[in-house]
């Protein structure tokens, strides 16, 4: 009887382990940012790229939705998503866009925006990149969609693609 119980336990353990391996094969072993959805963004204060004023999270509270987009003039994929940002900038009533210029030179950023168009309601600069850590950013381009309570409702890693653009439109209705 004693042996039978240990047999059952051992067989169950082995089956359990093998199933974990089986299911684990289907999972992606890379990092993802699913966990920050639902968090509030932290307080920040960054200088504007155009003047001496500072931009903080207070300024975003007046917006129904804000898309915070990290970009740089030296970043090639940022050019790929720029069209979607311009499209979104046409929906000024529903959504405002804050651009954060990451590890870049002011003049290069301004030329970049002059060349491709400026979709941003305001642009802040993050010269050493340290502010990006406050937002949970780990590469560019990355974008965070927040509501008027400053709660994160969507996170996009990499350039915005058509599918994510549609999802943003859905969320800001």
């Amino acid at each position, binding site marked *: 009887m004693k*042996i039978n119980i240990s*047999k059952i336990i*051992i*067989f169950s353990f*082995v089956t359990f*382990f*093998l199933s*974990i*391996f*089986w*299911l*684990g*094969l*289907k*999972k992606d*072993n*890379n*990092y*993802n940012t699913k966990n920050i959805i639902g968090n509030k963004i932290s307080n920040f204060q960054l200088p504007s790229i155009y003047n001496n004023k500072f931009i903080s999270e207070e300024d975003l509270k007046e917006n129904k939705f804000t898309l915070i987009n990290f970009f740089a003039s*030296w970043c090639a994929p940022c050019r790929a998503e720029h069209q979607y940002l311009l499209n979104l900038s046409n929906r000024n009533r529903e959504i405002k866009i804050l651009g954060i210029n990451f*590890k870049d030179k002011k003049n290069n950023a301004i030329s970049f925006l002059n060349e491709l168009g400026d979709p941003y309601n305001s642009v802040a600069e993050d010269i050493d990149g340290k502010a990006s850590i406050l937002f949970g950013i780990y590469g560019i381009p990355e974008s965070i969609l927040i509501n008027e309570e400053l709660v994160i409702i969507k996170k996009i890693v990499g350039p915005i693609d058509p599918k994510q653009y549609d999802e943003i439109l859905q969320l800001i209705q």
Partner: protein
Amino acid sequence: MLSNIGEILVFLILASSFLIIYNAYIDIKIRNQVVKRMIYNLSLFQITFTILCFFTLIIGFVNSDFSLINVYENSHTTKPLFYKIAGTWGNHEGSLLLWINILVLFSFLFLVFNFKHNKKFRLYTLIIQNILIIGFIIFLLLNSNPFSLIYPVPFEGLGLNPILQDPALAIHPPLLYIGFVGCSIYFSAAMASMLSEYKGKEFALSIKSWVQISWCFQTLGITVGSIWAYYELGWGGFWFWDPVENASLLPWFAITALMHSVMVLEKRNSLYAWVIILCLLTFILSVTGTFLVRSGILNSVHTFASDPSRGIYILLFLGLMIFTSLIIFFKKYKKESYNFNLKTRETFILVNNWFMAFFLVTVLVGILYPIFLDVVADIKISVGPPFYNIVIIPLIVPFLFLMTVGPQFKWINSQKVKFYQTLFFFFGAVIINLFIYYFFGSYSILTNLIFIVAIFLILQCFLDAKQSMYKKKIFEYPRIISHFGFGLLILCIGINHQYSLEEDFNLQVGESKKINNYEIYFKNIKIEQNKNYQSVIGNFKLTDLKKNLIQYLNPEIRVYSDPETLTYEAAIKSKITSDFYLTMSNVSRSEYYNIKFQNKPFMIWIWISAFIIALGGFVQLMLKKNEN
């Protein structure tokens, strides 16, 4: 052409496996003590086909025959000959063929060298081993065929990855596989032992050398892998508790426990069931390790290019192996009685197994827990060096202590231990430790304890060596050598960890940085064009202000064009007393370079002590050979 030859040979190996199994099965029924001549011949054919098959693949690499996809993906015409050959086993498909080679080789050698043992046992071992061989061949043919063709035939190969062109990395897989795959033979032997009821001391003697061989090579394989990581990967460390590293460590713990338990089975005819469990567990852990490494389930700097279909197949194979061995074990298990006195060698060997089990479970849980959590709760966590260090290191203290005291006891009967002598050495170790503490810089209580027990082990080994030479007890030498190596290893790692100097800072050309009694002056940057890469070489002047010594260190950043990779070559100056380690990487869009400077005491001794550990095992094998 090569592809045809290779595949035909694979089918021949497969055919010989089936024939061997069939003939062995028939021969078992014949009640005599002589294995049929035919079976020896079939085995000989099998090993011949296998070696020829591997040789065929090597020729493919040496001739840069890009009609074979495997050669195309992993080789290049401009690769030096040595690395072309090493490229054969430096990829998934080729290494699988190497696995099969070792499985067949050990199958053949076990059959031939164990002629003194029971016929039924030997034949069952052969059958089980060949079932394993068939399993791997089917995997090879269906999923990972190194002889697959590609058409049209490319002119040049893809495989010029510079990181893989290193001597240590070339020999690391064969060494490690002899360890990993060598376990298969005593897995089969354990199954055979249960099926043929060939137990006890005789069984222990039949597998003893094989356990020893796989242990030696596993130790060597892990050591060489660490050496490669230190000299090539540019982070200055030698063990990262990376999942792939851990996958090689798991069998090592099991083999070490088995190696010790086999002694108890041989000397006292006890612990049979436990030895069987360990034999089965070791190869199961090897295959589990292979699964973890090659299926892409883990995130690691070491991973092979991964492919989930491989994972599914290996998992099925693993499942079959585990369930079959469990079923047979439960069917044949008989309760044993144990006759262990407290103060005897066998009890201390049990203690060794206890600690090995602890270390094994710690590493296993560390690897598996993130997978478990991800699957069950969709939470991603990381388990890295801090976890393993916090759990394992404190237990090293009692482990080393018991390792020193344990071998002082004899078999079977408790005896009065040389208490005062042992106490004297222990105090000697304490004093030496205090000496280090006061003269060279203080450290934590835990480190104190580790130094004390490591020195204690070393001193005791010196005394044992002297006494063994005096009493001409040469059979103690292997144990003394390996245990001494282990104590030295822990001591050197402790000193290295405690007294390492590490700095991470940014410098521009022309700037200097002062760290303790060293000054590093970033003299200049040189750009060189080599055959297949462009290198940015930093020239650093290192001044030891205390001793007024000047050295030059030249780390490199290499830009390869084909394939487009960037590697960072560390500047390493290895001396008897310490190593200097300097790496340089450029900070994007800036004139600054990020510099990591390390001074690492006793690095060379870490490698030397690891080799000494393996040496003990080889001495044991030599002694056994002379005995015969």
